[in-house]
């Protein structure tokens, strides 16, 4: 008894001698038999197949794919059949999975996805991925074109995890013929969702979006949700609508798709893209992160989503970049690049953001690995990034490292010439310049750079000579020669301006020249050339790039000129980018001036950061006015109460506190630790307040907090507690305060009346009612010690209500040793942090605000604020 064959490879051929040998060799080990139906080849196809042991059958081509494929199936004897085209192969390591798949008793068929290597990258239906299935007589193809085994006959389809490589795009039929056949089939099977879907896809591949939508929509109306192509249909339809800018309809289709096929993450990616388009960045991030989450736990459902995880990561990076979360964007770009090394754009983005984040080691590490891998293409991109970042030393270092396998020595010499020239090492530059043959194709480019170097170093005589040489070179375009003459004349003052419009190539040359001049700290020369770039209507990007360069020079006037060149609809984006750049360089005053350019539209999260920086900047200027200790006599002796603040409680209070906390623990009312020996009076009373608060004994809690504040009058936590309790029942607690049943203790307040004024001052201060707060604080100015405690709040009241000049005046009379200044700064810190917290609430994904919060916290907590 012969054993039944396991796998039959089925093929339909016509004049496939070019690709067939590779395909047959590829499948030799795996297929038990090869069934080939040839449609009348006139080349060596049949001979090749027969020599390889295939069973070849001749058949007439009746323009019916199903007929031929079903004939294959009738002849196949294996338990399983695999359909491949002659131009397809499967990678060796993937082929190894095949035997195991055939042993799975729970599978009736497998999807093998197709990677097209042809130039015409078409959208393919997952239906065409069903290439491997059990050889059963009920599994037969339907339709003359875009043949398909109806899924109602074929259940338990699984993902094979195998990809077919399709080397060229080949078809027995041209597009017109295909479409005609498809239309015939549609007439034969009216209302067939599959045929409408396929026709819609064909139109989509031809970019006939409007017509495509019609057929895809009609397919969607009739499709059953268990059809293999259903999620793909929804996706194509939404993508199509997206391309037609019919965003609302696209959104509705995506919503429906998501509801029906929640594991098909492509819907989330497309919806994320829609949100991005609509500037709903938080929603976009949410969708894309959800997509990543689902992809981390892949489901077994088919068809698999097609959008690669690297695309999701790249989109996330782009969104975070748009909302100025550069750090997160950088991380996502890195992750995307890890998964897709072929995408050069990612590498450039990593370079750009690593520079902004001052993380050069990231590019350095990629370069090291590229050198280890001898990956020339990657090395060249990284060199380009280094050159863009003016990292000339690194470029020279790596050129020395890898020069041997770069091959073209003149190219190496030209790069080194440029690096040395920029670094000001003229002699070394000239050595490398001399290594380039005048007949070399790169000579002219280097010659122009050499001429530029003469402008950098004011070598006008040499420049004249080189200009003559440029003139004599026939292969240099006349417009380039004219441009270099004009530039030379501008630098030498022979002309003062020119109204010519630059061509794209000229524009790029002048921009790079300006960038290099600015890097060489030659702003004046750069300014002479800049007007050349302002003649034509450029897009926003070039102006923003230029403005960023001038932002690094803190040059408001030039930024303003460039701002005026930008179209109205791009001015906000311009402002955002440039302000951020200025803030990164700590040019706060200029950033504030840029903000005032044009319309006063919200900058989003950046509004809060700019506000914070300006606030701190003005504060810094104010504090500078504080006098040195020796220049004024001590105004307030504030040490006494500062020391009292640390006073420890007596035994009785400690014992009461311990018993109270023990009682609370027994009844689970409080969470107070037992070790109290280090606690101060203020802390003990504050803890007692917490216990009472948890027991909902609000008056007792209020009293305890009041007492804590008597020991530590500037404690923000206690102040907040008092304000909160007071706010819940203002009448009652006002009466309570006025009743004065509570005793005073501590070293600061001697009169209850003063303390009441202080407490009311704080309450109104926390409610941001600065005028009222100011009035209360002013009531306690009699005592020297008390006034020093209230003074920071008085400054706060004045400052926060816009009377900064008065604070400046009063602060200039203070001694640096006075505690008033740090206390005032601490109050300001809380004020800034409150405002930033408000911003963080409004812009939940803003890293910019989070970074600012961190910065403010660190600056003040380290006592390195300004003094």
């Amino acid at each position: 008894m012969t054993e039944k064959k396991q796998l039959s490879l089925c093929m339909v051929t016509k004049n496939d001698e070019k690709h067939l040998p590779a395909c047959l060799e590829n499948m030799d080990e795996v297929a038990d038999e090869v069934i080939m139906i040839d449609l009348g080849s006139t080349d060596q196809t049949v001979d090749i197949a027969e020599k390889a042991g295939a069973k070849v059958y001749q058949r007439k081509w009746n323009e019916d794919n199903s007929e031929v494929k079903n004939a294959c199936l009738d002849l196949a004897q294996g338990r399983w059949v695999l359909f491949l085209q002659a131009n397809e192969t499967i990678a060796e390591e993937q082929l190894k999975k095949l035997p195991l798949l055939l042993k799975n008793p729970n599978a009736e068929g497998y999807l093998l996805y197709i990677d097209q290597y042809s130039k015409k990258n078409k959208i393919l239906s997952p239906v065409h991925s069903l290439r491997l299935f059990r050889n059963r007589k009920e599994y037969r193809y339907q339709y003359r074109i875009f043949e398909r085994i109806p899924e109602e006959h074929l259940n338990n389809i699984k993902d094979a995890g195998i990809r077919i490589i399709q080397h060229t795009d080949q078809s027995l039929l041209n597009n017109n013929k295909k479409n005609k056949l498809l239309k015939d089939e549609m007439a034969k099977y009216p209302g067939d969702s599959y045929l409408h879907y396929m026709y819609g896809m064909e139109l989509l591949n031809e970019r006939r979006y409007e017509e495509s939508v019609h057929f895809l929509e009609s397919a969607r109306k009739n499709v059953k949700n268990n059809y293999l192509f259903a999620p793909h249909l929804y996706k194509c339809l939404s993508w199509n609508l997206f391309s037609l800018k019919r965003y609302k309809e696209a959104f509705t289709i995506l919503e429906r798709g998501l509801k029906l096929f929640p594991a098909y993450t492509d819907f989330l990616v497309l919806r994320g893209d829609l949100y991005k388009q609509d500037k709903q960045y938080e929603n976009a991030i949410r969708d894309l992160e959800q997509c990543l989450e689902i992809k981390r736990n892949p489901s077994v459902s088919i068809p698999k989503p097609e959008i690669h995880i690297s695309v999701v990561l790249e989109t996330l990076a782009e969104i975070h970049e748009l909302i100025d979360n550069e750090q997160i964007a950088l991380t996502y770009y890195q992750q995307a690049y890890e998964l897709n090394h072929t995408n050069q754009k990612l590498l450039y983005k990593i370079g750009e953001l690593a520079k902004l984040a001052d993380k050069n080691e990231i590019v350095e590490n990629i370069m090291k690995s590229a050198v280890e891998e001898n990956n020339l293409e990657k090395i060249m991109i990284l060199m380009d990034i280094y050159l863009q970042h003016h990292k000339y030393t690194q470029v020279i270092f790596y050129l020395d490292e890898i020069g041997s396998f770069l091959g073209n020595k003149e190219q190496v010499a030209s790069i080194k010439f440029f690096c040395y020239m920029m670094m000001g090492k003229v002699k070394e530059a000239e050595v490398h310049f001399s290594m380039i043959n005048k007949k070399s194709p790169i000579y002219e480019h280097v010659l122009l750079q050499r001429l530029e170097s003469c402008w950098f170093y004011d070598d006008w005589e040499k420049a004249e000579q080189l200009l003559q040489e440029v003139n004599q070179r026939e292969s240099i375009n006349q417009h380039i020669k004219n441009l270099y003459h004009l530039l030379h004349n501008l630098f030498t003052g022979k002309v003062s301006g020119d109204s010519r419009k630059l061509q794209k190539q000229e524009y790029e040359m002048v921009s790079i020249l300006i960038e290099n001049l600015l890097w060489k700290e030659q702003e004046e020369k750069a300014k002479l050339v800049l007007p050349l770039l302002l003649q034509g209507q450029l897009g926003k990007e070039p102006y923003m790039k230029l403005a960023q360069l001038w932002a690094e020079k803190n040059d408001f006037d030039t930024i303003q000129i460039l701002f005026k060149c930008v179209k109205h609809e791009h001015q906000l984006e311009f402002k955002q980018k440039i302000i951020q750049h200025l803030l990164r360089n700590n040019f706060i005053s200029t950033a504030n001036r840029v903000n005032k350019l044009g319309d006063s539209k919200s900058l989003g999260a950046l509004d809060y950061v700019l506000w914070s920086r300006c606030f701190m900047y003005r504060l810094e200027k104010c504090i500078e006015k504080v006098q040195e200790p020796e220049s004024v006599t001590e105004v307030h002796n504030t040490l006494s109460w500062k020391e009292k603040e640390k006073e420890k409680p007596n035994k009785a209070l400690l014992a009461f506190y311990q018993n109270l906390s023990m009682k609370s623990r027994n009844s689970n009312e409080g969470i107070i630790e037992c070790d109290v020996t280090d606690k101060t009076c203020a802390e003990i009373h504050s803890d007692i307040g917490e216990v009472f608060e948890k027991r909902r004994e609000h008056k007792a809690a209020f009293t305890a907090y009041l007492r804590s504040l008597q020991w530590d009058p500037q404690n923000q936590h206690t102040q907040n507690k008092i304000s909160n309790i007071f706010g819940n029942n203002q009448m009652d607690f006002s009466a309570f305060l006025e009743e004065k049943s509570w005793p005073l203790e501590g070293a600061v307040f001697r009169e209850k009346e003063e303390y009441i004024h202080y407490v009311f001052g704080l309450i109104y201060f926390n409610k941001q009612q600065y005028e009222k707060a100011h009035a209360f604080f002013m009531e306690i100015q009699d005592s020297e010690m008390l006034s020093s405690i209230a003074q920071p709040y008085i400054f706060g009241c004045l400052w926060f209500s816009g009377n900064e000049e008065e604070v400046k005046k009063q602060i200039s009379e203070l001694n640096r040793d006075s505690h008033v200044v740090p206390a005032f700064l601490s109050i300001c810190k809380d004020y800034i942090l409150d405002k930033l917290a408000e911003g963080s609430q409004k812009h939940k994904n803003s890293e910019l605000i989070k970074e600012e919060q961190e910065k403010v916290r660190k600056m003040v907590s380290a006592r390195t604020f300004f003094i």
Partner: protein
Amino acid sequence: MYHIEVLQRKLDQLMKEPDNPDLYNDIGVLLYQLKDWHNAEMYLQKAYQLDSSNKDVLYNYAQLLNEQYQWEKSISIYTAYLDMEPNDIEVIQKVGNTCYLIGDYQKAQKFYEQLKVNGEENLDR
């Protein structure tokens, strides 16, 4: 409405029994419930004057004084109450807390000690 009707009835009754401390106490409590603190205090004070050994009167009067921030006075009335009801842990705790509020930590601590002893005794039983 219910409180006011009862209050009216009690006041009528008081006309007939002007020295009845229970009536004063009841009226004080009703007024307290009606948040008429001032009159509640007057009636409870009168009840206390008429019968300073009535536990209910002591408790109610001390409670009212405490609510009105008259902490020192409330402590002395509560203490008289505790002489009669030494195991009322709720009141012991209340007095302890009130002593804290007036800044008498020594006394506050003593009451909490007493609370601890009472708690242990309860456990022993």
